[in-house]
């Protein structure tokens, strides 16, 4: 199979109308909103140096905030506002997806429009403005008939810059729940599907270029008094807007939205759930690449209907509770989910994706280490590697306290590289994830946590409040519960780490279903 005939291209293509449509919709709305704010603002502040500097300064600071962070910040902000609105006016709104993305992107688009409008107007020959005054124009007439037309090329350049920025940055709105061309990129990066990454980048670039050229066409049309150019440019923009409406019409009314976080296992499981729903004759649509906090709030707010989370993640990260014995924790978790959020815990899938101390099997056997307790006396001469957050997480404190562990050295590492590093002996030990396929690949062993210092990370299926009593949904998912053991999940994750057509989450999910449904 060669690069061009790779079936992942056609897979990518079938997702294009949905991703592109959403991308255009969120970008153009944000651009229109940004323009509607920054253009009048520029006109208001242009002759007031203090206000002008403040406006440009604030817009400039916004610009320095990384796009992803800006988008991420709007989510909790809107969530709080939605809560207040619900409290005061009795109606809330969704803080998920479209709204935070539009607001953040609109803010992002303001600087070029603001700066270019002000610069363009200031750059006009004062003699011409004086002439406008001299022939008897009011300030408004001077602005509309003389200053704006003359500043138009500079203003349009600003709008075009804003358009390109917004379209590019909109790819980052995937983790806050807005479908965009970024879905290709996030999914592709996680599942090492470089076809998707390439496709997403190319599509976003092509869209940015197209919008830029359409705006350029309108600009030259206005400047050269060419009606044909203006009409053509506007038609192009209008066609894009129509294209964005297609996905919202195409989507069935009662579609189940299946969420997935940003790592491979989640993509596989959401594909598996979607496939089971479709097999039961239900319509399912994935919403992938969501941030860990975002996905939970989205479920609680009914923005998505179902996803798989891990008990320990919810307990420690979401609820910020102390680690409890396994049975009590799982029980308390179920009650808390139901009572506080209305979320139904349908059941567990049968495996855990927990943090675990992992080392090469041969070395463990040679040293006679089977449990973490066995490790304790030797730890002082050993080094350990973990991901970027592990050493600051409560689990690590808990392990160290329970077993009195103290390592010679703690290193932070990119998760993908940890396993190879421990297999090669670069570090003695890693804090890995129990369901990772690389454990099998490198013949590593997970040390037993006999004192239950690490909270349970059972994979559990969660349903949104409005789907709590949806029998069709629970029936369709019932066959998955308790059926996926750690070996199956590891094997599936390992398959998905490959880089060919059989490693797409859909293909791996089908393979996993075939394996557990024997």
């Amino acid at each position, binding site marked *: 199979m060669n690069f061009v005939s790779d079936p992942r291209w056609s897979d990518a293509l079938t997702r294009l109308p949905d991703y592109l449509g959403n991308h255009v919709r969120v970008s153009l709305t944000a651009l229109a909103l940004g323009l509607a704010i920054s253009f009048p603002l520029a006109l208001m502040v242009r002759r007031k140096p203090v206000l002008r500097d403040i406006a440009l300064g604030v817009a400039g600071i916004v610009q320095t905030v990384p796009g992803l962070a800006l988008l991420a910040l709007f989510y909790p902000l809107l969530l709080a506002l939605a809560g207040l609105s619900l409290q005061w006016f009795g109606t809330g709104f969704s803080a998920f997806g479209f709204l935070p993305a539009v607001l953040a992107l609109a803010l992002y688009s303001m600087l070029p429009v603001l700066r270019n409008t002000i610069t363009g107007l200031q750059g006009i020959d004062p003699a011409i403005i004086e002439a406008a005054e001299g022939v008897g124009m009011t300030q408004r007439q001077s602005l509309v008939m*003389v200053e704006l037309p*003359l500043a138009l090329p500079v203003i349009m350049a600003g709008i075009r810059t804003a358009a390109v920025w917004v379209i590019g940055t909109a790819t980052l709105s995937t983790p806050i729940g807005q479908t965009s061309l970024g879905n290709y990129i996030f999914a592709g990066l996680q599942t090492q599907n470089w076809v998707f990454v390439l496709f997403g980048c190319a599509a976003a670039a092509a869209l940015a270029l197209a919008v830029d050229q359409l705006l350029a066409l309108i600009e030259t049309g206005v400047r050269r008094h060419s009606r044909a150019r203006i009409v053509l440019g506007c038609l192009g923009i209008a066609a894009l807007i129509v294209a964005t409406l297609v996905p919202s019409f195409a989507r069935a009314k009662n579609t189940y939205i299946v969420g997935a976080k940003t790592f491979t296992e989640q993509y596989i499981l959401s594909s598996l759930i979607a496939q089971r729903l479709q097999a039961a004759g239900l319509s399912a649509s994935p919403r992938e690449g969501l941030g860990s906090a975002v996905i939970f709030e989205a479920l609680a707010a009914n923005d998505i209907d179902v996803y798989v989370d891990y008990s320990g993640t919810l307990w420690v990260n979401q609820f910020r509770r102390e680690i409890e014995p396994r049975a009590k924790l799982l029980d308390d978790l179920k009650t808390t989910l139901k009572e506080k959020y209305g979320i139904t815990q349908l059941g567990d899938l049968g495996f855990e994706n927990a943090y675990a101390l992992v080392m090469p099997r041969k070395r463990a056997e040679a040293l006679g280490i089977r449990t973490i307790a066995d490790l304790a006396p030797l730890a002082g001469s050993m080094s350990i590697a973990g991901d970027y957050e592990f050493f600051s997480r409560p689990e690590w404190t808990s392990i160290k306290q329970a077993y009195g562990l103290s390592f010679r050295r703690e290193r932070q590492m990119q998760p993908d590289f940890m396993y190879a590093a421990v297999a090669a002996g670069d570090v003695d030990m890693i804090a890995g994830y129990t369901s990772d396929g690389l454990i099998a690949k490198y013949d590593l062993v997970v040390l037993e946590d006999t004192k239950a210092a690490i909270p349970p990370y059972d994979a559990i299926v969660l349903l949104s409040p409005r789907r709590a009593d949806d029998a069709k949904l629970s029936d369709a998912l019932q066959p998955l519960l308790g059926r996926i053991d750690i070996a199956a999940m590891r094997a599936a994750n390992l398959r998905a780490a490959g880089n060919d057509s059989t490693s797409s989450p859909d293909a791996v999910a089908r393979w996993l279903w075939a394996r557990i449904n024997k």
Partner: protein
Amino acid sequence: MNNAAPLIAYENVGKSFEQGRAKALDDVSLRVAAGEFLAVVGGSGSGKTTLLRLANRLITPDSGTVRVHGDDVRNVDPIRLRRSIGYVFQSGGLFPHMTVAGNIGITPRLLGAPVQEISARVDELIDLVRLERSHRDRFPHELSGGQRQRVGVARALAGKPKIVLMDEPFGALDPLTRDALGEDYRALHRNFGLTTVMITHDMAEALLLADRVAVMRAGRLVAQGTARELSQSTDAYVGELLNTPRRQAERLRQLLPMDDA
């Protein structure tokens, strides 16, 4: 002409810029009679441009009064005042994004004239200032300096003003064009019974075109009168200004055979 009622009157006018630090006009009184062609001569910074702009209230005086048609301009709507007064800017001041027709028709358009009427008026003015009708749809950058200034004159006349203010209108033109345009304007001034105030730094141009010349220096009016009256002035600066055209005229008389020679 001095006996006629003044159309524009400056009464003890003072004006400073930069919060009083730069004095542009210092107690200037000057009357411009209806139908008169007055040239204001002075170097840069003499206050002549300030004097011109006071007349259509592009600026307002700090002290004293400016009257147009007998009314204090402070009591007149500045927009209406400006639309009723023609203004020719230094090197044209044309709107670069508008055609010749668009530039000429701007004041009637602002006054709300119907499109057809504006179009007819534009054609009429193009003929009057001796442009070609084929220039109608050209843009200012496609015209020569002289053509641009003719458009400037046509634009100033489009609203059928009684008063035309000209800010060094012919300064940037070559001598031949300048002479032709000056003569053409002089004819328009006479034919339409206009009252014209033209500022210039060129005494020869002032003497040749205007009925009367006012001389400004450092914000003060140092002399005013016809060529003959000025030549009798005892003011040293006026004498200095008159010296150049005198010397040139003398030299030219010697060099060129006269018509009747």
